């Protein structure tokens, strides 16, 4: 979610869902994981409503190469603001993999995409994030 208001809306709806769907909780997972899934699904529905979800780009399996980001660019704030500038699709995959710790199979299930799409999206998202971080750094250096 890009804006705080949107995030709060989604959180609110998600928790209303949690309480009204409580009887559907099947004990296949922990309550925490179940609630997390509901919140994520609400986020995704919100993104879909705003037509912000990703286009299935050419699905060429990408070699997963580690993306090295210069150490001085690795800060919580920089990464956060960099992620805000990513396309929603990229941000979603990055959020699910990097922040929420889902693996590509789980992301594929959540987003209803293939595992290889998840991997390519993730790889590209990281590269894009690196570009943004470097760009930001350069512009701030220029401004200073």
């Amino acid at each position, binding site marked *: 979610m890009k804006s705080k208001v949107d995030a709060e809306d989604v959180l609110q709806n998600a928790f209303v869902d949690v309480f009204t769907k409580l009887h559907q909780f099947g004990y296949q997972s922990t309550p925490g994981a179940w609630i997390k899934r509901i919140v994520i699904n609400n986020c995704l529905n919100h993104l879909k409503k705003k037509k912000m979800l990703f286009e299935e780009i050419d699905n060429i399996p990408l070699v997963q190469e580690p993306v090295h*980001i210069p150490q001085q660019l690795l800060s919580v704030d920089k990464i956060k603001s960099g992620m805000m500038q990513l396309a929603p699709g990229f941000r979603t995959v990055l959020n699910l993999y990097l922040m929420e710790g889902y693996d590509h199979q789980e992301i594929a299930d959540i987003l209803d995409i293939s595992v290889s799409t998840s991997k390519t999206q993730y790889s590209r998202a*990281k590269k894009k994030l690196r570009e943004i971080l470097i760009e930001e750094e350069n512009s701030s250096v220029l401004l200073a």
Partner: protein
Amino acid sequence: MSDNLEKFVRKNREHFDSETPRDKVWSNIYTEIRPEKTIRRISWYKYAAAALILVSFGAGIGLFIGNSHSNSEILVQQQIEESEKKYTKLVNNKLNELSEYDFDKKLLTDIELLDQIHLELKAELIENSGANSRVVIHAMMQNYQAKLAALERILSEVKENDLETQSKESSTIY
């Protein structure tokens, strides 16, 4: 295969969660789920019934565990009583044997001390029959063994003395 971005995020994950919702969100959630209460009253009973079953089930398990616990406690108690019987018999035998001889009663102070310790241990066992009962029982058994050993020592000493006096007596006779 993780790169430095992944490592960094993993290490600092909690710092990314800096946003908290305003209180308004929670009150909204509350008001949104409230009107459903009237409709869902029936299912409330279901929950209550489920809770009741759970509680009684839990209580059943609790009682079962409690029972099996006290069963094992009874077993332990029996074992203690048995070995106590065995040891008191041995100790009494020795004491009886001793009483046939004439000896310095000061020798028995050690035994009295051991008796005292034994009583203390027994009191402790009754007081907390929980976790360290094993330790206490072990200490009690050691106490008995010490008592027996002490009695044995006294007895042999007394016997020796007796033999000496006897031989002296006999030598004076003859």
